[in-house]
């Protein structure tokens, strides 16, 4: 799983240290000014410059003087109730039926031979749910107000009186409530599907003469080997992302249910990762030729090393043992000893580098989580002299320390990113992480509903739906627009594509229309279009980043900070859409 450093900032770090608050306020200010200007221009067209200004000021004034103070949650709640009932009447719950059918036939589409079936199952249910509730979101939200306007029931409502904000909030709450109900049901079904789908046991197939080492039978297209200790307890090896506890009960050896596949690791990540080159000088780490630069590499049998810097680690989280996980990779410049993995050494040291633990050798376990640990009371070196150390007294008295990794094998490389080494004090319950994943989906659905209702306040139903879909598509695929702008994806913009597709010109081939002027003109127009789309994209939420399915699928705890950040973003869009909807509802003619 790829984790970027910003994903493991705490909420306060994001808000204050990394300018989350500042950027949000700037965005709010910019949108407010933009909104005011657009509103003023519209008003100028209808009423002239002076009166237009007065009208806009009046609307803004009324918001603070009348609509907000006289806002009634009771009325909003009534509208919400009506919206809820309306959705039920529209048979929106059919979506659950569709979801159940998808679950039933999911087995056809899921790869039975996947190395990590848990990831596949969890990704499937979360993705299916995500798309279905987003569809639910825009279907329920886009048609409600336009249909009321068309059927003139809107007059009955606004003359109650129901204020524009109450109308908007009521609709949003009502649709969100139905969406939440659907999501709850889907979540329950998904959980049962995942747990049942992954549940299996093994029988012992063969065992050696000592009765300690054996092999299980094949179930779910895999088997395990296991080793028992003197007390008759042990575990199997890891296969398909899980293990089993094995224990001897009398004469029988019993293999327990799978463990480690449905987890929620609570990682403590380092603040930063630094690299040192083969000459001992700091560098950015080596690139061994891969297109992806997520991981950087250190060279074997040289001064090259990777140093993780931890800060603020609470000693109370670790009693006798500090558990940590490694997910580093290896790159060979020559095959060498095929059987033996590339090796490295790891050790912990204080920030001033005066105290360090003994170097421990390890062999790389690629594409697996290598679970390791060190004792808090251990042997090491102080100022170069052997000493007995207490980790949190000698190495990390203030919770600050470094972890160093070097590669042992000459001509080979070890690759790592910042998130490839983390401390693992404890694991949380998988079900709670699953719930948090669904909260992320709920947030996306909420934002879609807000946008849908907002668009429906000034557009007709179908047009509002198209606008909402456009916002969703921009939100999911906005990165593609960025890639086109930055030319990391070849093929040109929309106009160039319109020429390439019928002429079957591949994206890697230079366009040649016989006229340089024409080609330049096309490129210029595409640049304008892409810039415009890119600006629009900035205004819509980035659904790709709001998605947290990977956390749940890869068994990493969804951080409170990240969830808090998403909540804040969702709230921000709620405020934005509320204000826009208020303005439009306040100023538009209700006559059809």
């Amino acid at each position: 799983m790829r984790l970027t450093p910003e994903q493991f900032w705490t909420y306060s770090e994001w808000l204050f240290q990394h300018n989350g608050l500042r950027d949000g306020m700037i965005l709010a200010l910019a949108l407010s000014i933009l909104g005011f200007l657009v509103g003023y221009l519209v008003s100028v067209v209808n009423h002239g410059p002076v009166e237009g200004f007065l009208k806009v000021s009046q609307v803004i004034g009324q918001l603070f003087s009348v609509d907000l103070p006289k806002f009634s949650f009771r009325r909003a709640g009534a509208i919400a109730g009506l919206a809820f009932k309306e959705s039920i009447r529209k048979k929106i719950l059919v979506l659950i039926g569709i979801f159940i059918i998808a679950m039933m036939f999911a087995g056809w589409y899921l790869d039975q031979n996947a190395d990590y079936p848990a990831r596949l199952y969890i990704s499937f249910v979360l993705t299916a749910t995500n798309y279905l509730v987003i569809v639910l979101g825009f279907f329920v939200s886009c048609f409600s107000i336009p249909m009321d306007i068309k059927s003139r029931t809107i007059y009955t409502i606004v003359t109650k009186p129901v204020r524009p904000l109450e109308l908007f909030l009521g609709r949003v709450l009502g649709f969100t409530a139905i969406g939440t109900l659907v999501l709850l049901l889907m979540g329950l079904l998904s959980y049962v599907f995942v747990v049942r789908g992954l549940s299996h046991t093994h029988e012992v197939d063969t065992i050696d003469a000592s009765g300690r080492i054996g092999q299980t039978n094949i179930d779910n297209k895999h088997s395990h080997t296991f080793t028992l200790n003197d007390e008759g307890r042990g575990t199997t090896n890891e296969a398909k992302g899980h293990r089993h506890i094995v224990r001897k009960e009398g004469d029988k050896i019993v293999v327990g249910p799978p463990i480690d596949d449905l987890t929620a690791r609570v990682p403590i990540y380092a603040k930063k990762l630094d690299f040192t080159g083969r000459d001992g000088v700091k560098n950015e780490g080596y690139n061994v030729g891969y297109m992806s630069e997520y991981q950087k590499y250190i060279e074997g049998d040289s001064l090259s090393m990777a140093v993780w810097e931890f800060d603020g680690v609470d000693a109370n989280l670790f009693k006798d043992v500090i558990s940590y996980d490694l997910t580093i990779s290896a790159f060979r410049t020559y095959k060498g000893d095929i059987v033996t993995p590339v090796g490295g050494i790891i050790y912990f040291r204080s920030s001033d580098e005066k105290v360090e633990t003994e170097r421990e050798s390890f062999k790389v376990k690629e594409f697996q989580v290598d679970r390791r640990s060190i004792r808090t009371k251990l042997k090491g070196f102080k100022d170069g002299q052997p000493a007995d150390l207490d980790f949190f007294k000698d190495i990390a008295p203030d919770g600050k320390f470094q972890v160093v990794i070097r590669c042992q094998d000459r001509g080979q490389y070890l690759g790592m990113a910042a998130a490839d080494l983390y401390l693992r004090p404890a694991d949380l319950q998988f079900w709670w992480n699953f719930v948090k994943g669904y909260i992320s989906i709920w947030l996306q659905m909420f934002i879609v509903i807000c946008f849908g209702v907002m668009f429906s306040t000034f557009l007709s139903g179908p047009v509002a739906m198209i606008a909402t879909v456009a916002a969703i598509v921009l939100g999911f695929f906005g990165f593609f627009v960025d890639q086109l702008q930055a030319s990391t994806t070849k093929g040109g913009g929309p106009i160039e594509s319109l020429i390439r597709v019928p002429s079957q010109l591949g994206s890697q081939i230079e366009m040649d229309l016989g006229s340089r002027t024409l080609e330049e003109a096309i490129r210029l127009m595409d640049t304008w279009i892409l810039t415009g789309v890119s600006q629009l994209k900035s205004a819509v939420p980035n659904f790709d980043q709001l998605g947290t399915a990977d956390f749940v699928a890869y068994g990493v705890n969804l951080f409170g900070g990240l969830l808090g950040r998403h909540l804040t973003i969702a709230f921000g869009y709620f405020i934005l859409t509320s204000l826009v909807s208020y303005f439009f509802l306040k100023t538009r003619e209700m006559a059809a």
Partner: protein
Amino acid sequence: MNNRSLTRKILYILLIVGLLLPLFYLGRPPIGGSGKIAELRSRYAIGQADLGKLDPTSESMKLATLGMRGIASTILWLRADYFKEEKYFDRFSATLNQIALLQPHFISVWQHQAHNLSYNVSPEFEDYRQRYEWVKKGIDYLVKGTKFNTRKPILQYELGHYVGNKLGKADEKLQYRDLFRNDKEFHKYFVEEGLNAVSDDSLGPDRKPDNWLVGKQWFEEAYKLVQEGIPIKKSAHLLYSYAPLWQMYHGEAIEDEGVLDERAKFVWEKAGREWKEFGNRELGGTGSVAVTLRSLEIAKQSLIELKEKFAELTQSVRDKVIASKKTKVPEAKLAAFEKADADRSVLEKMTASEVAMAIEPTYQELASELPREQRVEALEMATDLRGAEEYYRTTNSLRDQVNYSYWEVRALAEQQQMMVDARRLMFEANQLIDVADIKGSVEKFEGSFVRWDKVFRYYPVVMTEDVGGDVLKAIERYKKLADEELDDRFVLFEFMKFRRAYDADYLDFNVEQTLSNWKSAALDLGTPEDFFSTDLSEAYRKAGDKQTQPAGEPSPGETKPAEPASEGEMPKDAPAPSDPQQPGDSKSEPSKPEGQPGKPEGQAGKPEGQVGGQSPSGNRPPTLENPGR
């Protein structure tokens, strides 16, 4: 107004019904002349059920795209590329499965992505076991493809390559082969998919499936489809060469793993037999000429006879035609041609050969000059001659492309006890290096080299390719162990020189000439004395049951005459050479010195054969400096 509207509606309905009638006629099942579409579908086997299995998952997924299958596939391909770049290999694999469901009949999907899995993704993994799993995923992907495309033998062909080549020739071939032979789940999978990977034909000497033999079976599946008339875009001579070649590679592999007894000989005997069958198979060559690779000598003989007949017939007009053609040659060039060869400069020599080619009369020209009563016969003979030449040329070319002669001789050589002994001693020498027994290793190497010398004398072509390369590496290792320079008293000194020159430039004229003369010398040596029994399959099974077989013992039973071969082989009736090294020498204890390179002749511990540069028959083998004899 209403009437007009009603009339229009009635007209539309009548038109719709009218159009439905031919549709109905064309689309119904083929009964009584109707059902043209169904008939065409059946004739060209393009119905969905004709292409392969009907998969409800695939069909429902195609329907679910609502006509945007192309867009969905494109997005999936892009996502797959992204996942591969970012090393999300589990998602990559899942995406490939989705692509295959959307485009099950697009063969390139199966080929390209299977290659991606087995060859591009698998090396990304550090652990060889994980690499093996990903190679298997690629194989599994192709197997699935065969179910959707039952009339595409290219997929079975590729499976033969993957299972044989990828597992058997990779750097980690030892590990892969070991994993494969113990991978019961994978064997069971093949059996379920219709390939009996546990039949006798697939089992190696340890009675477990061998990847080369299973790969060979996949090729045979492809052959079955081709023989049913389903075309494949592969040349016939290359296509049909793979099955016997895989048998040979199986032989090589088990020998590398230390199976150096009758079991290995049996494998090579079978390989030789299959190679011969391949040589007797009629293959389409270039144009419309069908050839058999083993017919080269016959073709050559036939061509010579035809040429002689034609020359005899056209002798009277030949000079006339040449004279006539000479008049068209510029004088300067003609002057160069007419000079004596010794007097020509380099440029004049080239000019002379150009002129010689230019004035050489064609068959047509000669035939046209003959009197009317002989002309028809000559023209017919000219046509036959052109056909014969084309046949010979094609046969020669195809033989070169599959290296037919080399493998023919190789299969024969590998069946000889001397070669098995040579390999065994070399294998044991390498093993002794691992346990730091330098002395023992040196002795084994020396024994091995004496036997290799004999093998190269009888089968010089074996000096080229991998075998010679391995022996050269062994010599280098021996040099380091013995810590002495090897001079011309070393038994394989001439081989060493030849091989180094061959490695530097195998197309060099001197290298080719030397090899050619070794082959001529081999013909004079006659039949090797230690051909063994025909009852090899029995020996093979017994040896397999016992797992080990005393090495070096000649098999019981009568000797078998050598198969006639085109080159590099001995005539049947040639006398055995007076070689002091007898078959029983292979019974000698491995620890005793088998000959000591570097020492003068006659000082060897046992009369195992002369280890200097002299051949058993006393003739010095040809050298690069003195290629002629």
